[in-house]
């Protein structure tokens, strides 16, 4: 079988001592970077790229890839433990993952995240090995119209993230969309809502918004009563491991998440990002206990974690098979290849099979390393968040602030984080959840771009949105989703006149 012989070439290349060592360095650095707020994988890889020039091409790529998925992993760890999404893909893990941690199930949450990611990574690696050339074409089915429809679908799913009122969820998404528009407009280059500041031309820093609304707001609300009784229960041996029930509950969500992530990861420009909350929305819909979501539902963590990792893996496919970068990290990998005089494109697979298959094999090895590296560390992490809260919260604050500065060597992001802390507290008071806002913030500029580009291409003819079957399909799903959410609410609203939560 060709696949087996290909994988043989790959594992042969990836299992050399040198490559194993650099794969390990990559995932280790990646995990650390993912846990530190501020610096993301893109900035880290850009900094370490010159280092890889001295390495064999395949070794360099293996290390970069390790940093990339290691960072995704590290981001989920801080999201679960301290409600701090370092990466946009980890926003969803904050919702139920952090709730699990508060209920004393931090160990289980981390284990579910690790094993879910590993499972997704394994499946996605096999998919890449078996079908990359065929799957690569999927990216070309998506033009501006299809992307716009996907964004609409994604944002509809985002409102499902909130477990409170649907209409407030929509309003939060809109608020996020508006905040996301700050900066230079792609079509005309006009600076919008920048109030004369050149530092704002690239928009408000995502990490500042995430820190203010999630981590800092969390600190404030944790402190409203007595800090000693923070809602994290004392560790017992049992709380560190996953129960058989929790394991069983996470199997199907992980499988579904893997499928969603593998598909969306193929799309350049936002695909992998949407996958984690598409999975969350899906799990909430199919669940028999949707009321558990937002209060530590296992499916609400296992599904998105798997989706996010699968998406990260399959986003390599367009880069490897066509030489097309689907995100900044992939663009850097192309740069790393070109330094070694290897032209990325459809011929890499044929001309340099050891690079192509070696990288694929290393992804699986790297994912296995992450599990081996992190499972034994879980008790340590869990103990770490059980130190006195007066020790923990200043650490979070200071490390976040230094991290914010490091992004652009600029204090503006820190001021923004302070502003978003106030806003976050206000939202908390008004019982409006922040996750939909953050997703609107990420997707807003993309949505506007594709919307305007579609109409520019059609010269103002709106029928362009229903001439593409793919777009019609996605828009219909979004409409049906809205109806499903709204109908019971309207019915319920009539029945329950007064309702108060303690």
């Amino acid at each position, binding site marked *: 079988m060709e696949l087996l012989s290909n994988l043989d070439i790959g594992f042969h290349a990836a299992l050399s001592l040198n490559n194993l060592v650099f794969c390990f360095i990559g995932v280790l650095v990646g995990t650390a970077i993912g846990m530190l707020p501020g610096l993301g994988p893109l900035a880290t890889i850009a*900094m370490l790229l010159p280092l890889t020039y001295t390495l064999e091409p395949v070794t360099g790529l293996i290390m970069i890839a390790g940093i990339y998925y290691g960072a995704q992993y590290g981001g989920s760890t801080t999201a679960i433990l301290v409600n701090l999404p370092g990466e946009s893909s980890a926003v969803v893990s904050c919702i139920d993952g952090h709730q699990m941690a508060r209920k004393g199930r931090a160990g289980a949450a981390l284990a579910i995240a690790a094993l879910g990611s590993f499972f997704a990574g394994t499946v996605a690696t096999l998919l890449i090995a078996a079908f990359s050339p065929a799957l690569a074409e999927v990216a070309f089915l998506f033009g501006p119209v299809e992307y716009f429809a996907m964004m609409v679908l994604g944002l509809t799913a985002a409102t499902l993230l909130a477990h*409170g*009122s649907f*209409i*407030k969820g*929509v*309003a939060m998404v*809109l*608020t996020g*969309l*508006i905040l996301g*528009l700050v900066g230079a407009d792609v*079509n*005309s280059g*006009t600076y*919008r*809502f920048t109030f004369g500041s050149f530092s704002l031309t690239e928009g408000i820093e995502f990490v500042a918004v995430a820190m203010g609304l999630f981590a*800092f707001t969390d*600190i*404030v*609300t944790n*402190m*409203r009563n*007595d*800090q*000693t009784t923070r809602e994290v229960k004392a560790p017992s041996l049992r709380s560190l491991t996953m129960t058989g029930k929790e394991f069983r509950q996470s199997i199907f969500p992980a499988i579904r998440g893997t499928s969603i992530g593998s598909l969306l990861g193929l799309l350049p420009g936002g695909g992998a990002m949407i996958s984690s909350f598409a999975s969350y929305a899906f799990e909430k819909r199919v669940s028999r206990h949707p009321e558990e979501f937002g209060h530590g539902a296992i499916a609400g963590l296992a599904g998105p974690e798997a989706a996010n990792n699968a998406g990260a893996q399959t986003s390599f496919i367009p880069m490897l098979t066509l030489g097309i970068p689907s995100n900044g990290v992939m663009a850097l990998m192309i740069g790393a290849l070109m330094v070694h005089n290897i032209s990325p494109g459809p011929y890499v697979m044929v001309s340099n099979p050891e690079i192509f298959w070696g990288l694929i094999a290393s992804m699986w090895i790297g994912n296995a390393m992450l599990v081996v590296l992190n499972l034994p560390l879980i008790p340590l992490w869990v103990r770490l968040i059980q130190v006195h809260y*007066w*020790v923990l*919260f*200043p*650490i979070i*604050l*200071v*490390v976040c*602030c*230094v991290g914010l500065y*490091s992004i652009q*060597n600029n*204090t503006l992001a*820190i001021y923004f*984080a*302070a502003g978003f*802390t*106030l806003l976050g*507290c*206000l939202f908390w*008071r*008004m*019982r*409006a959840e922040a996750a939909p806002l953050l997703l609107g913030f990420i997707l807003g500029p993309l949505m*506007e771009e594709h919307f*305007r580009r579609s*109409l*520019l291409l059609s010269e*103002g003819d709106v029928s362009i949105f229903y001439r593409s079957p793919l777009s019609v399909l996605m828009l219909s799903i979004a409409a049906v989703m809205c109806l499903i959410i709204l109908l019971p609410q309207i019915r319920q*609203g009539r029945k329950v006149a*007064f*309702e*108060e*939560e303690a």
Partner: protein
Amino acid sequence: MIFKSNGQADVEAGLFFAGFGILTAALSLQYSLGTIAMMGPGMFPLILGVILAILGLVILAKGFMGKGEQAKPLPIKPILLITASVIVFALLLLTVGLLFAIPAQVVVALWASEHFTWKRALLLSAGLLAFCYGVFVYFLGISVPLIAI
């Protein structure tokens, strides 16, 4: 109070969203709107602002009808002190340096907690200084002044 629903979360949320929507719509009028075929930079924010304002009013109306949840009481002292600690750090970082910015932030933030003692603040500051210098400055090579004056 005229409205007994004054403590309603939806009333406050409605006012906020409506206000933010109107503000956005108003600010977006300074940019050109363009046509459907060639949308200007002002069109999309205007549409979003108007929709948000309408949603805000709907939420407000819901709030006045008296159903829905109470607003949660805001803890004023922690809010002010935690936010202030972040701002203090930003102010001091480039003017006097990391060596002073970190302890200042720790002291202000810890003040919000009932567990404030000078000894604890000192210990935390020392540990964080060592950690941040080691990781961000030494390992990651971020150029941040230890002492700026």
